[in-house]
Each structure stands twice: as structure tokens, then as C-alpha cells.
């Protein structure tokens, strides 16, 4: 299963991608929202993990664009943010995210959310 990880922080990107690789996922990565939108279209991943605080265009706007495009709107998006603030979840869902999680990532919790959005698909 191919996941697109959109994350600007090098350390977070390296860490999360390696942890997901170990769980058997195929990972492609983008470092900002613009590249995220572009790669959603070119890679057509099974699911997108979208950090919300991103340079160029932020995760909310990138999600809106992905969900507005015919070719990519079916791809589930999980929004990730470090600010566990009330309203963040609603804001992410409003932008089109199918689910939402907070950083630091609890890997098992995140994988449960990925699996819930992709039932029946093995990693």
C-alpha cells in the first residue's frame, strides 16, 4: 500500500517514513503543500498523511486542492498537527481531511486510522 507523507520537518519525515516502512507500507514523500498536491496527482497514493503547518501552501489548502481535483478526490487524507487545540480536528475535517491525528505520532493509533480508511487492504 502506497502512502504519501507530506511533512516539512526533516527529522519528523525521516522518522515517520522509516517507522511506516518497517510496518510494510510503501512511502513517497513531499516536503511542502505544493509538492504534496503535485505528488497526489502523479503518484496516486492509496492514502495521504498531511502535516497541516507546511510552507508554500499549508496542509488545509493542499487538502482542499486534492479534494477539489477529479483525479485525487477519492484519496483519503489524514491531517496531522502538533497543536492539539480544540477546533483543529473540525478545521481539518472542514478542509476535506477524512481523519485527523496529533503529533507526536503514536504509531499504533495512526496505523489503526490508516487501516480504518483502507479496509481490507494489506500494508
Amino acid at each position, binding site marked *: 500500500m502506497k502512502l504519501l507523507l507530506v511533512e516539512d520537518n526533516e527529522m*519528523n519525515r525521516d522518522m515517520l517514513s522509516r*517507522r511506516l516502512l518497517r510496518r510494510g507500507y510503501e512511502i513517497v514523500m513531499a516536503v511542502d503543500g505544493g509538492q504534496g498536491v503535485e505528488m497526489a496527482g502523479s503518484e496516486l497514493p492509496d492514502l495521504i498523511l498531511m502535516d497541516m503547518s507546511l510552507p508554500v501552501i499549508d496542509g488545509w489548502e493542499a487538502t482542499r486542492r486534492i479534494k477539489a481535483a477529479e483525479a485525487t478526490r477519492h484519496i483519503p487524507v489524514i491531517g496531522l498537527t502538533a497543536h492539539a487545540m480544540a477546533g483543529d480536528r473540525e478545521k481539518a475535517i472542514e478542509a476535506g481531511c477524512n481523519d485527523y491525528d496529533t*503529533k507526536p505520532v503514536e504509531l499504533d493509533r495512526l496505523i489503526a486510522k490508516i487501516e480504518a480508511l483502507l479496509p481490507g487492504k494489506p500494508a
Partner: protein
Amino acid sequence: MTQTPTSFDAADQDAAALQVAAMCQALRAPGAEMASVVDKVCEQAQARGLEDAADDLARIRKACARLCALIEEFADAPRAARENPAQWLATQGHLRHDLRTPLNAVKGYGDMLIDDWSAGPGQPLQDDLRATLRLADQLLALIATPQEAP
């Protein structure tokens, strides 16, 4: 007319700065303990020739140093708020986020190393790594719960 809101804002700022200072005081001891446990893990890993882990351990160590530097920087938040209010305002909004970022790294890389060291020469280092992760959780809990002003 503007006097009341301005002084109210200043009092608010003071209270926020005091809260940050109190938080940093509370973070100091577990932060220093975490850094020293990590140093010990690094030394032992080197002694055991665990070269594959060197990069990840260096990242963990760097994250600990970053955290400790932030704690020291904001331990005297009330003075920073008085001396450079504009800069203080700009930083305080994302201070908790900035403190969480290195802890996020410690936890993520630490978890991976615990997996890697489930067997082989790294195994005896697992306990110290687990202690590191417990301290990271303790620090995250302190950052998550703003201490109420009396």
C-alpha cells in the same frame, strides 16, 4: 481610554511569562536526567560497536540538547517578556510546540532503536532507552498541562 486594556494586556503577559517560567523550572530536572541517560546510552552503544545506531543516537542527542537549551532560554521568561516584549509575544505562541518537537524526535527514534535492539548486542541498552522514553513522556505531560496561575 486605552489605559485599562493596555495594563490588562501587560498583566496578562506577565502571568503568561510566569507560567512559562514555572513550566521550565519543572522541565529542568527531567530534561537534564533525560540528556544524561541518553549520553550513557550513546557511550555504551559506541563501546558495543553498535555503529548502525550511531546516526539515530546522534539525532536523539541533538534533540535533547535542543530541549535543554529551550528550557534554559525560557526559564527566565518574565525578564525576556519585559526586555523584549515583541519578541516574547512572537515566541510564546509556539513555545509549547517548539518544546514538543525535540521530544517527538526522542520518542520516535527511541522507539525504533528499542525495536532494533530486541536481540543482539544492543539488548542490554533497552532498559536505559525505555527510561529515556518514560522521561520524554513525563516532559510531554508537563508541557501539555499549563500550570494554573494561583
